[in-house]
C-alpha cells in the first residue's frame, strides 16, 4: 500500500513514460532497507513540498510582478519578523527529520549477536569471502564474458552484475560482514540490503543484514579502486537454512578436494587447460587475453624474457607479485595448483613454446620457503 502510494505520488510529478524505467531506490529485502527506503521517501516528500511552496511563490511573483504588466516596484527591503520565521520553521522541520534518521542509524550500527560472520576482502578487482569458523573461503570474480563487454556478443540481462561464485547466506539469520581490503579502498554495496561499507586496507569495518526473502541480490563496488572498478560486482544468494547447510558442506568438500589435487601428478596438458581458465579470470584484465599486455604499465607476456627464461624467476613474480607496478601477490590469492597451472599455461601459449611444466609441488615448496 505504502509503495503504491509512493508510485502514485511520483506519477504526478514525473511524466508517465518514465514509470516503466527503474528510477527509484529499491525497497530492499530487509527491515533496515525498508526503513532506509521510508526515510528516503519521507525526506523526498518534504523536499518536494518545500520546492512547491518556494517555487510557487516565485513563479506567482514572476507572473504578477513584471514590468510588462505595469507593476510598480515596492521599496520595502527587510523585516526582522519574517527572517526569524523562515529561520525557525526550517529548523523545526530539520529536527523532525533528524529523529527518525537517528533511530534508523542506531539500528544499522548494531551488528552485535550475529549468527554468521563473513569476512569480505576487496582485491583489485574481485571480492574474497571467508566464512569465519567454517574453513570455507573463495574469490568471487566477474562472470560476464569479455565478448559482451567489447560488444561482440549480445549482452545478457545480468550484464556486469554476475559473478562466478556468489556469496551464499541463509534467510532470517543475522549475518555480520567484516570488511577489509588487500590493496586500495573498495566499497561493498548491495542496494537491496541497504549496505554500503568501505573496505579499507589495514582496517576492519562491520555491517549486518537479516534477509527476509530468498533470492539473488546484486551490487557493485562503489569506491573508485582503479582501472577495473566497474568490473567487480557482488552477488548475494539468499537461500533457506537447509540449502545453506548443504552448500556449506559442498564447499568444504570441494576445498578439501583442491588440497588433495596438489599432491596429484599433473600432466602438461591438464596444467595448460586449467591454467587457461585461471588466466582468463585473474590475468587477462591487465596482460590481455592474447598475452600482449598494455605496455608500459602491464608488460606483454607473449615473448617476454621472464616467461621464456628461468622457471624460478617466473614463479617468484606470480607468487610474490610486483605490488609497486600493480601486480598482486597471487601466492595469497590462488592455490598452488592454480599458480602452477597458470605459469605452465603462460610458458606454453601464444609465441611462448618452452615446453616447461611447473608442478603444484614446486610452487608449494617456494611458498613454504618464504
Amino acid at each position: 500500500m505504502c509503495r503504491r502510494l509512493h508510485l502514485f505520488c511520483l506519477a504526478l510529478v514525473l511524466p508517465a513514460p518514465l514509470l516503466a524505467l527503474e528510477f527509484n531506490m529499491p525497497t530492499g529485502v530487509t527491515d533496515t532497507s525498508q526503513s532506509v527506503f521510508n526515510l528516503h521517501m519521507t525526506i523526498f516528500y518534504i523536499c518536494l513540498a518545500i520546492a512547491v511552496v518556494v517555487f510557487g511563490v516565485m513563479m506567482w511573483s514572476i507572473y504578477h510582478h513584471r514590468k510588462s504588466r505595469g507593476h510598480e516596484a515596492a521599496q520595502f527591503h527587510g523585516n526582522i519578523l519574517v527572517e526569524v520565521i523562515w529561520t525557525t520553521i526550517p529548523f523545526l522541520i530539520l529536527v523532525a527529520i533528524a529523529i527518525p534518521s537517528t533511530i534508523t542509524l542506531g539500528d544499522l550500527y548494531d551488528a552485535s549477536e550475529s549468527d554468521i560472520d563473513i569476512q569480505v576482502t576487496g582485491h583489485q578487482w574481485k571480492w574474497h569471502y571467508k566464512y569465519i569458523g567454517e574453513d570455507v573461503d573463495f574469490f568471487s570474480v566477474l562472470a560476464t564474458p569479455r565478448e559482451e563487454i567489447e560488444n561482440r556478443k549480445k549482452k545478457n540481462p545480468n550484464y556486469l552484475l554476475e559473478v562466478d561464485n556468489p556469496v551464499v547466506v541463509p534467510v532470517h539469520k543475522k549475518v555480520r560482514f567484516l570488511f577489509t581490503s588487500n590493496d586500495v579502498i573498495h566499497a561493498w554495496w548491495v542496494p537491496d540490503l541497504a549496505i554500503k561499507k568501505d573496505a579499507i586496507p589495514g582496517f576492519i569495518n562491520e555491517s549486518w543484514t537479516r534477509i527476509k526473502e530468498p533470492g539473488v541480490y546484486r551490487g557493485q563496488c562503489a569506491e573508485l579502486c582503479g582501472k577495473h572498478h566497474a568490473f567487480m560486482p557482488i552477488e548475494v544468494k539468499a537461500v533457506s537454512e537447509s540449502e545453506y547447510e548443504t552448500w556449506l558442506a559442498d564447499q568444504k568438500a570441494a576445498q578439501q578436494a583442491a588440497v588433495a589435487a596438489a599432491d596429484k601428478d599433473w600432466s602438461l596438458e591438464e596444467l595448460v587447460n586449467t591454467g587457461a581458465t585461471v588466466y582468463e579470470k585473474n590475468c587477462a584484465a591487465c596482460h590481455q587475453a592474447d598475452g600482449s599486455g598494455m605496455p608500459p604499465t602491464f608488460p606483454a607476456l607473449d615473448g617476454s624474457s621472464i616467461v621464456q627464461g628461468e622457471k624460478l624467476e617466473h614463479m617468484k613474480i606470480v607468487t610474490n607479485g610486483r605490488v609497486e607496478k600493480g601486480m598482486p601477490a597471487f601466492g595469497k590469492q590462488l592455490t598452488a595448483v592454480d599458480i602452477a597451472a597458470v605459469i605452465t599455461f603462460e610458458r606454453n601459449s601464444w609465441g611462448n613454446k618452452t615446453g616447461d611444466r611447473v608442478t603444484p609441488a614446486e610452487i608449494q615448496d617456494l611458498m613454504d620457503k618464504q
Partner: protein
Amino acid sequence: MSAHAETMHHGPAKGFSRWILTTNHKDIGTLYLVFSLIMLFIGGTMAFVIRAELFQPGLQLVMPEFFNQMTTMHGLIMIFGAVMPAFVGLANWQVPLMIGAPDMALPRLNNFSFWILPFAFAMLLSTLFMPGGAPDFGWTFYAPLSTTYAPPSVTFFVFAVHMMGISSILGAINVIVTIFNMRAPGMKMMDLPLFVWSWLITAFLLIAVMPVLAAVVTMVLMDVHFGTSFFSAAGGGDPVLFQHVFWFFAHPEVYIMVLPAFGVISEIIPTFARKPLFGYRAMVLATVAIAFLSFIVWAHHMFTVGMPLAGELFFMYTTMLIAVPTGVKVFNWISTMFKGSMTFETPMLFAIAFIVLFTIGGLSGLMLAIAPADFQYHDTYFVVAHFHYVLVPGSVFGIIAAVYYWLPKWSGKMYDEKLGQWHFWLSFIGVNLTFFPMHFVGLAGMPRRIPDYALQFADFNMLTSLGAFLFGTTQLLFVYILIKTVRSGKKAEQLPWEGARGLEWSVPTPAPYHTFTTPPDLERK
C-alpha cells in the same frame, strides 16, 4: 566624464607585453576570465569523452584506464581551472569598481597570482602524454590509490596543485587587503555590496583551507617518494586520515565555488526587480554562518568509512543545519523579487535559473545529509547529479549571469539580447536534460566513476549524454556572443540596466583603464 580626464594620460601598454606585464586590475580580470573560458572548454571536451563512452553500455571508445584519467582531469580542470579563476577574474574587475578603489591593493602580486596558473595547468595537462598516463584516481585522489597504486604522473599532479594553491592564496590575500583598506571614504563594512561581502568571506575560506590542501598533497608526495606512511596502515598510518584532511579542505572548497555566485545573484536580482535587496543584514549573516558551518561538516562525505555512531550523528546534524542559512538566502532573493517590477534580460534569466536549480541541488544535498539514506546514495550518480546541480546551474550560471550583467560596462558594447535568450534557453534545457536523469540512475543503483554499466541504466544514460552534447555545444554560442559583442556590439549606454545601483555604474562606459584615481564622494550620492 571630466572627473576622469586626468586618468587618460596613460593607457595600456602596446602589444602582447601588455598582458604579460600588466598590473591593472581590469586587464588581470580579463586574463582570468579568458583563461577560465579556455579551461571550461578543455574540461568540457573531457566531459564529452566521458558522456560519449557512457552513451551506451559496453566499452566503445576508450579504455577504462583512460576513462578514469578523463573523470579525474575533468574534475580538477573544472574546479581549479574554470570555476575558481572565473570568480577571481570577476573579483578583479568588480571589487575595485564596487568599492571605489583605483586598483587592487597589491597589483604586482596580482599579476603573479594569475601567471602561475597557465604554468600549473600546462604541467597538469602534460601528464596526459606521459607514460602511464595522467592521474587516474579521481579528483578526490584517495590514498592509497593515489600513493602506492598511482601512475608516475602523480608527482606532477602534486606540484600542479601546489601552484594552483599558491595562486589562490595570493589572490585571496589581495582581495582581503583591498576590501579592508581601499574602500571609498565613508563606505562602512555594512555598506559593501553583497558581491564584495561574499568575496571577502570566500577569501578567508581560501586562506584557511588551501594550506590544508597543500598539506595533504605534500603528504601524498612524501608517501610516494620519501618512504613515509601517512596513509598506509602497513607503516602505522591510516588511509582514512587522508579523507579527513582532504575533506577538511574540500568541503569549504565547495562554498568557495558558490559564495561568490551568491554575491552575483544578490546584485542581479535587485537590479532587474527594480527593488532593493531584501534583508541585506540577514544575507551577510547567512553567508558568514554558511562559511562557519562549512568547517564542521566535512565528514558527511565519508559516512561509509566506518565512523563511530557519535561521529555520524554529529556530522549528520551539522550538515542538516546548513539548510537553514541557505534557505534564508533563497527566501530573501524571492522576497526581493516579490512586488518588484521585473524584466527578464539574459542576466536575470540566468539568475532566476540559478535560484531554482541551485535550490534543487540544495534539496538533494539535504537528502544526502541523512546518514542512513546516504548509505544508499553515497558514490552513486545521485551524488553526481547533486554536485553538478550546485556547480553547473549554480556556480557556472552565476558566472555567466555576471558576465552578461557587467559586460556592457567592461566592453562598452551591448550583447545581442536575442542571442543571449537563445543561449539561456538552450543551456537551461541542456543542463536539466544532462543532470536530472542522473538522480534516477543513481537511486536505481549506478555507481559513479564507471566506464560501463548494467543494462537497466541504459536509457537514462543516453538521455544524459544527449543533454550533455546539447549543453556543451551551446557554450560555443556563448563564445560567439562574446566575440560579436566585443567586435561589433551596439554601443552600451552609461547605465545599461534601468534598475542598477552601485559605484561600478557611476564610471563611464566602457570603464576607462584607470578608474577612481580620486575616491568617489559617497555623500553626494
